[in-house]
């Protein structure tokens, strides 16, 4: 059922495109842009204090994540905080090794981040991981006290369902398709026009 109106046809194409592109990328481990910006802002304060650090978020198992994080740390000479939907890896540079033991920090990261894995909350896990790193710098007096990070909630008790934020691209496509379908139905029923 193709709409007759040109705008609705354009809406159909855009909606299909967004839904398809969004659904194709749905399994990726990605942070939504504003929250990524918030975490980078926190890491920037560490970088400005002379502690170069990167947050690596990728859809991968622990082995792949570890090798990617190690490669990045070696090539860039900085600390790498690696995160996927089920794994967390920390590779410290020489400077950060003086402040913390890598193995102990990774164990602590697992303790704090694992509850977020259980509920599939990637954003919560990333926020906890970043704050775990910066809190060492705060405790050492290198950084001042920093404001809390979003998201604000504790790890959820039940499984974290996909939010509209995480499905925004295909979601907008689907909303557009619903609208186009409704309007097309109305085109076929003159009483509604």
């Amino acid at each position, binding site marked *: 059922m193709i709409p007759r109106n040109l705008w609705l046809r354009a809406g159909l194409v855009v909606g299909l495109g967004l839904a398809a592109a969004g659904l194709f990328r749905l399994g990726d481990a990605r942070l939504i842009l504003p929250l990524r*910006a*918030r975490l980078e802002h926190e890491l920037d304060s560490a970088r400005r204090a002379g502690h170069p650090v990167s947050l690596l978020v990728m859809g991968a198992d622990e082995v792949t994540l570890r090798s990617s994080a190690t490669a990045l740390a070696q090539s860039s000479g900085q600390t790498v905080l690696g995160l996927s939907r089920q794994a967390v890896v920390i590779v410290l540079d020489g400077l950060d090794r003086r402040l913390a033991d890598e193995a102990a920090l990774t164990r602590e990261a697992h303790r704090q981040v694992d509850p977020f894995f259980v509920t599939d909350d990637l954003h919560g896990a990333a926020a906890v991981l970043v704050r775990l790193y910066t809190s060492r710098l705060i405790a050492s007096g290198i950084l001042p006290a920093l404001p809390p990070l979003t998201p604000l909630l504790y790890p959820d008790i039940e499984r974290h*369902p996909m939010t509209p*934020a995480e499905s925004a691209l295909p979601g907008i496509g689907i909303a557009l398709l*619903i609208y186009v379908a409704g309007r097309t139905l109305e085109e076929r*029923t003159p009483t*509604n026009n």
Partner: protein
Amino acid sequence: MTRWSRLALVCLAAQLAAWAVIASADWPPSGYPLDDAWIHELAARNLVEHGVLGVNPHVYGSGATSPIWALTLSLGALLRITPPWFSNGLNLLLLLLTGQLVLRLLVNDGLPASKALPLAVAFGCAPNYVWFALSGMEATFVSFLSVAAVAAWFSPNSRTRLLAGVAAAALCLARPEGALIVPLLLILRRPGSRAEWLSCLLVPASAVSLNAVLNLWLTGQLLPSTFAGRRWLWLTPLEGIGLVGRGELLVLDWLTRLGEFTLGTRTAWLIWISVGVAALGLRTISGPGMRALMAWTVVWFGVYAAVLPTFGHGGRYQPLVPSLFLLLCCAGAIRLADSWRALVTGDRRFVNGALTVLAVLLTAIGPGMALLVWRDGHSSAVRHVNDTEAAMGVQLRALPPDVRIASFDIGGIGYFSGRPIIEIGGLTDPRVVPYLREGRIADYLKSERVNYLVLPLGYTNTRPDPWNFYFRLGLDQAPDLGLEPVKRDTSELMLWRRGLRTTLHSSPVQALYRVNAEPQAP
């Protein structure tokens, strides 16, 4: 009974039933679900007892986001009606009146009764919106004033149109951003007479000027004293996110919230489908009155997206959003049902009716479930506030009368302690805000010679717990303050979480510390 009376009664009954579902979870009402509601009650009581409208009995306007709401509540304090009976009763009345006004607006816009009624019911029974009437806050009041201003301005009756300015003036006094409704109304419909010009322009302008002069005279600033403190509270977790990103987060947070607490679903796909249906419903809302209400809601939302990008406790900063969203969903669902009916069944009357009823029922199932979520959330939130802030306030009475007490949360603690509390959240005194921003509140406490401190805490002492104000205020870096734990009032985890998810009320723990630092000169 006229046809209009029957419509009005059905709308009224539906709203009362929705209200009763949530209200019955805490009946008779034992308190408020938000500590901020106690702030208004405290300001109202101070007006009656000390003649000053403010949390601090010596500072006008301190602590109350909406002085006119606190002023209204002072009537209850004057009549010695125990909170929350007066505010709940008043808010229920305003809730019902808003439903009636929306029904009138839809009918005036030319919608047939068969469509106007379900849409008005959807607006008035939106679960989040119904809860506002039990929150003790001004959200229902400002919603009523918004709808009243629009309904009057687009009324076919010339005398009624003159009332728009009065409603707009009250809205300006209830919320500073309310002033924007005046230019919006003037843009959307040019006044037809000099009297209309005067009503719409001069009455609100006089009210705003009077309030500004009063604020400037008594507090030394134009905006409410709560503004700077609230910006610190809500904006610091968003540092590093640009203006567009903050707006995007606000929209996405609202969508998540609308799903769970208005449509009764946490499934993202259903929420996005609802967005499509609501967009379709926009075509039903084609009359000037409802379009104006929609435009006002968008402007209101935009102001917050730019200045204070948060929905606030329980969504109270943009209270019309859940109602209008559900109304649009309902309008869209009815349009879809109409199309199917015309396409599939032609003119068969019984099937036509059945399809319409099915569309309305399908629209009602989700919100019905959301009402139950609010019922649970509301009673949990009331218990949490009673067990922590209010309970701590009662305990503070036992401290010697000459000790100086400071607290971050000021509502229940200030109300139930019945004694002066130094507020450190930046709501009553904007001079505190720089200390908050710089993490130097310890210096402020020393300069104020504070003997006891009440802090909201999380369950654990680990970072990055955002509910833990011991860390958030930088007190972990001020060992010289010599904080000695005295008492903790804690809510049980599941109870706290149930209330938090719906209302975003407050930290799970209130802790009392003795301050052993040497006071320093200010």
